[in-house]
């Protein structure tokens, strides 16, 4: 007997098509449905994120809540992928945020490369408080330089592109010493075999608030930003690699106003012989280009009065009162004008220092800059 007869019946009993239909309905469909239930991976779903509003900036992490979250998933913000997907459970994960510009973003959940869920406009990135970029002038020295190395005025750091520093003035190399902070004191430590090149730079820096709330200006470096302040070390991209520049003083870049002042110095005879027209103040705080007072005339010598002697330091030999006229670069400060961070006023004291001498004097008269006929206390 044939297995399938001429009427299409299997073993003479069941119609072949009926058998196919029966097997399909009773076996294949339940089996398929069972396999579907068994192997179907539950669809992941995003429920929410927290926080929904963040401020632009580094090191921000958000949490996402969802259903059926799995390892190796990814979350993106529009098209920018989150740095990590730190899954805590099937209902929660933390995401380290990428750098996002201010705006509103869709939060998108990916399983491998396939988008599986999306929360439209779920995340808002707010801009940071504005941080102005300003320019300052700093005096100091390039450190650890080979004996003959130097820089020319106009050298830029970095040499190409938008420079963050430019050399305004440069001095002769000298043996290097660095100022190192040791506890509460700063110690100048010689560096044998190295030289330093004094210079004045114009630097661009970004203003930010320090932890104590004061504003400070920062110059970016290869590892960390450096604050513009005395003894701070800037690391700059020079023409031949990174160079170090230790700041000794910092000023605003605006060209200082110049006053003309008559100053009475109490000097000894030996000092009198050394003071001459053209001497420039070299004392700390006056090292930057255009920020040093200069003697323009010597107006006369007289015996020192008792009051002047009392205010002056002890002078060896017969003390004299030397009156000199100086041009003094001054800056606006709280309470009026200042020179070397000290008030600059008639009757005030002034210390003038060169490589050879240091003299103490009293400001007898001031001719203010033409644009500011009188001091403007603030």
């Amino acid at each position, binding site marked *: 007997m044939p297995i399938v007869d001429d009427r299409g019946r299997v073993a003479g009993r069941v119609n072949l098509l009926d058998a196919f239909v029966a097997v399909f309905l009773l076996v294949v469909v339940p089996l398929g449905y069972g396999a579907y239930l068994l192997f179907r991976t539950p669809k992941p779903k995003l429920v929410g994120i927290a926080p929904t509003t963040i401020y632009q900036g580094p090191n921000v992490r958000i949490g996402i809540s969802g259903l059926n979250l799995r390892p190796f998933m990814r979350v993106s913000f529009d098209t920018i992928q989150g740095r990590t997907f730190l899954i805590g459970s*099937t209902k929660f994960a933390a995401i380290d945020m990428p750098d996002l510009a201010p705006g509103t973003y869709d939060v998108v959940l990916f399983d491998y490369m396939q988008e599986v869920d999306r929360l439209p406009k779920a995340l808002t990135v707010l801009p940071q408080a504005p941080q102005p970029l300003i320019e300052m002038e700093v005096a100091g020295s390039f450190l650890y330089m080979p004996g003959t190395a130097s820089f020319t005025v106009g050298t830029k750091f970095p040499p190409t592109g938008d420079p963050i520093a430019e050399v305004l003035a440069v001095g002769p190399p000298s043996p290097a010493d660095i100022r190192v902070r040791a506890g509460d004191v700063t110690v100048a430590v010689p560096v044998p075999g190295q030289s330093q090149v004094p210079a004045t730079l114009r630097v661009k820096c970004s203003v930010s608030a320090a932890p104590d709330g004061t504003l400070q200006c920062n110059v970016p470096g290869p590892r960390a930003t450096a604050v513009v302040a005395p003894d701070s070390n800037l690391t700059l991209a020079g023409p031949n690699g990174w160079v170090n520049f230790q700041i000794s003083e910092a000023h605003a870049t605006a060209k200082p106003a110049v006053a003309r002042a008559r100053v009475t110095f109490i000097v000894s005879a030996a000092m009198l012989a050394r003071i001459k027209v053209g001497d420039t103040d070299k004392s700390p705080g006056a090292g930057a280009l255009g920020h040093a007072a200069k003697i323009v005339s010597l107006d006369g010598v007289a015996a020192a009065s008792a009051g002047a002697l009392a205010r002056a330091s002890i002078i060896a030999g017969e003390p004299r009162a030397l009156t000199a006229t100086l041009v003094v670069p001054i800056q606006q400060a709280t309470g009026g004008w200042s020179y070397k961070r000290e008030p600059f006023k008639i009757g005030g004291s002034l210390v003038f220092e060169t490589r050879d001498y240091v003299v103490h004097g009293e400001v007898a008269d001031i001719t203010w800059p033409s644009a500011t006929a009188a001091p403007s206390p603030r």
Partner: protein
Amino acid sequence: MSGPAQPAMAIGPMGAATIAGIAVGVVYALSPLTVLFAIAMAVMLRWAVRGIDGDERKWLLVLLIGAVVVRVAAVALLFASTNHAQVPFGSFFGDEEYFIKRAIWLRNVGTGLPVHGADLIYAFDEYSATSYLYVLAFVQFLVGTAPYGVHLVGIAFYLFGAILLYRVVRSSFGRMPAFIGLAIVLLMPTLFAWSISALKDPLFFALSAVTLSGAVNLVRARLWRHRFVAAGAVALLCVVLATVRQGGAVLVIASIALGYAVAALVIRPRVLLASIVVLPIVIGAIMSRPPVQLRAYNAVQAAAGQHWGHVATPGWVYKLLDDRLYPDRSEILDLRAGEALRFLVRAVTGYVTVPLPWDAQSTPALAYLPEQLFWYVLVALFVPGVLFAFRRDALVAALLFGYAMVAALMVAVTSGNVGTLIRHRGLALPYIVWLSAVGACELLTAARGTAGAPAHALPARTLS
């Protein structure tokens, strides 16, 4: 002047017994543990050769006595080479000194002797805490402070475990594989080193061997009450093992479970074939559940974290993770799929191959090289050995396989320091060697062209 001349110094049986008694008394006074160890060894050797005759008995005694002698000699050498004017006692390994001191401090606490406040804190420190410290403390409570005698305790535990496995394996695989395996377990340098240590490793090995023997008896015992006793003993030992080594119970339970499962499949070829088909499907179905995926992922992360910690230790280390994960451990929290897979593959290959002979960086590493090459031979013989062993005694072979695989896997995915890997490979080695020995014997037999079953082989056995 009559009668034959007698030797002036002749000693009769009574005299000899007296001298022996005095000698034992002197030794006992100096080191009670040495005398107790000698008694234990005599009992153990008698048990080891029970039911074994002829040349096999002779060679077995030579091997065991030799093993005992070289171990005791090593401890004696340690005693002789230690300058006791500078240190209270010598030790073989860095951890041992701390370990022995902790046991002494615990004994002092137990006996009410005053201890320094710092010692009291260290005695109960969680770091390296194990119940074996209390075993050593109790032994020293009985016999007094014995910083060298505790090595004999470790030797006794190790020899007990080795002999127990030898007797189990001999009845299943035959004389020669058992003897070769025992020789390797007793003489392989790193196993020798750990067998004479005062650390917890010898006790853990001995108790694990007992659980393996108990797992065999649980299936094979003819009387149900014997099976109950075996089950109870295994359960009790699992509890004890959990106190000896962290995760010790999990290690043994997983080993026995794997052994039983493999044995059940191996003796039923049709079920085995069906399992080969069904297993991937079942695994796929289970792994499609997010909670299961997450649990597996967390386990891999935890293992990777332990490996990272080992890599951060001083000494000779090796890396299993991608380079981006080493600078910051927290990066492991974001382990990617490919990285996890590569980590697992490298872990397995690293367990077998590290240290690579051409990476030897020091004299000790070069000195270890011959054993590393021997390890490669053992691994090469392991695969055919498992297959041949299944034909001889599926249950014992599967249990040895289970103990070896679980220990190897746990060590493979957590190690990162070469020295630690070599030490922890000692957890799997005592089980691997018997199967490799079977492989060696069978391959040698096949190479000789001997027809039929080898002379030293026993008939194939079923589960029970």
